[in-house]
């Protein structure tokens, strides 16, 4: 069975590149371009990993992270935060996520981190 990954990322280019990369590795990918569409996602499609961008047009990925942690259904779903802006230390302080990735990333490292978090869960 394919592992499922939900991506919340406002930039279409990054969304597409990440999708292509993860799909080529056999993951099933769901994408959202803003917080409101993410919050409206179907509860049936609960993924094995959330990949969240920080700066979003209608909200902040770190808040989304905290929200997921506090909700019963998603409290234990692994989360990886992605940002081009904040340093990892800054992100670590703001939310409890399994891992952090800074943009721009190396695809091999990206896949390794994603694979490790998904396998651990």
């Amino acid at each position, binding site marked *: 069975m394919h592992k499922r990954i939900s991506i919340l990322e406002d930039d279409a*280019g990054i969304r597409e590149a990440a999708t292509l990369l993860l799909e080529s590795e056999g993951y099933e990918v769901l994408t959202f371009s803003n917080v409101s569409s993410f919050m409206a996602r179907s509860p049936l499609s609960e993924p094995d990993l959330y990949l969240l961008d920080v700066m979003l047009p209608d909200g902040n990925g770190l808040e989304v992270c905290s929200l997921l942690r506090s909700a019963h259904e998603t409290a234990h779903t692994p989360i990886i935060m992605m940002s081009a802006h904040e340093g990892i230390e800054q992100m670590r302080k703001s939310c409890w996520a399994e891992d952090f990735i800074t943009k721009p990333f190396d695809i091999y490292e*990206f896949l390794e981190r994603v694979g490790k978090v998904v396998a651990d869960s």
Partner: protein
Amino acid sequence: MNLPDKDILAGLIEGSPYPIYLIMGEELRIAVANKATLCAWGRDSRVIGMRFPEALPELGEQPFEALLKNVMATGEPYSAVNDKAELMVDGKLVTSFYTFSYQPVTDKAGRTVGVVCYATDVTELVNAVDKNRQLTQKEVANNSSLARMNEELMAANGELASTNEELLESYRQLEASELRFRNLIQQAPFAICVIHAADLVVSEVNSRYLELVGKRRAQLDGRMIWEGVPEAADYYAPVMQRVISTGVPYLAEEAELTLVRQGVPEQVFVDFVYEPVTDLNGTVVAVMVIGIDVSEKVNARKAIEEIEERIRLAIQAADIGIYEMSYLTGQLTTSERFDEIFGVKNVRRETLLEYYHPEDVHLSDNAHREGRLTGNIFYEARILPPGSPMKWVRFQARIFFDSADIPERVIGTAVDITEYKTLQQQKDDFISIASHELKTPITTLKASLQMLERMKNNANPVMFPKLVEQSSRSINKITDLVDDLLNVSKMSQGEVPLRKEWFTVSEMLDNCCSHIRDSGTHELILTGDREIRVYADEHRIDQVVVNLVNNAAKYAPGSEKIYLEVSRKADLVKVSIRDTGPGISPEKIPFLFDRYFRADESGSQVSGLGLGLYISSDIVERHGGTIGVDSVVGTGSTFWFTLPLDVP
């Protein structure tokens, strides 16, 4: 026989027609002075008890005090016959003659404790004798005069001859004396010119004077003064005339004169005096002009005054606050601007520190401590002036030490750098935004390229074109961002040239913003005058329209229609871009066209560098037009710009 009692004795002394007085002690205090004495002195009884020299100050130059002292010191009596004394009687100095004696008065041990004086006024006697002698002399003279006349006549001849010689000698002496006088004038370290009162002819002039007034000797010597220096005549001829008629010297300090030196008018400052020279009858026969050129002194002082004034103005213009503090007394002196920055005045350092931001208050002490070693103070601190928002202030000061190397006082400046700090913060924010904006397409580009590389030997026919397209899109985004950045830096250096040509505004609008039209999110509706042509840089104006339409699409995502309108206003064409979005709050409007300003501060992100409106306003303004916005919250915004029609 019984001795008469004291009162009788005192009465005897008091009543004596001869002056009797007693001086006691080293101090020469007047103990007794009878009526005759007081009368001779022209004083009353108040002198009794006073010191002799104080009671009779006019005797200071005369020998009496010394004589009394001598009697006191030696115990030897002194007497004089027909001696002259000058005393102040009824406010007039009266000359009298006395025969008197100073007798020492001793105590029981034989020590001299005082001097008693017995005197007789012999003035009349002396005068009579004198007159008698004169008369006698006259008679003797008459007798001998006949004989002498004869002799004299004989002598006269001889005398005439010698007089002639004497005259010659006097003349030679006079000549020598005049020569000395001339030399004196010539060698004097200041300018001297002697002018005859009667005809104002210069009789004597030294080279310093000639130098001062910039003339040659021939122009002045032996000529009427105002012919020599006509440029000074208007003002100074009447002044000199007054000195001649009144005999009162005229003094001038730092008189400003325009003198023609070697044919060139020059401003000089001179200290000078017109000193009247009188003959034996007191008539002014000449005026001696003595002068010193103080131009250098005056100019140096004026230069310093000017520099001070300039510094003052510079300080004022630079908005620099000044302060001085004594380490010994803690006294703090501050300028008006300094007080303005802190919002308080006449306080001590301790009070000022209370207005520092709590996190910055230690900076002052640190700086002073370090300043003891380096002599300099430099720090920037936040202050919270009463009743105004936080300020950033830069302090720069110099510490002055005494000879023992102990800090004595500190003099420094305080500058409000709040605006600079705000700008710096905006710039930091901008760099952070710019780097984020660049990292986004770079992330896509890097991922796409790595994926392409990974499949280089076994290309996936579906993914390959997608990745190539993704890469080139990312590169375009990066190029656009870099262009924006370059444009801004070129703009600040004024380097973007305009390439103007004639074009029709509506055609330009029809063709622009294909990316918005293609995306299908917004509909662009063009209205207004389709015929208007302008002379402008079409590419730049297109850029402005794209920026404004992009903003409308970005900030008014719910506004499906964006209206473009072209209209003519007098000699201007106005292009408006209207949306029906949320509008802009009025407090943001004044800053919209500033560099680095971004409308959203909510933390949510809108892509772009926030430079669009800044670049647009620069383009419009360089065309001689204006840019602006009318916005109502809840109704929508209309961004517009105008371009002049009457060019070229």
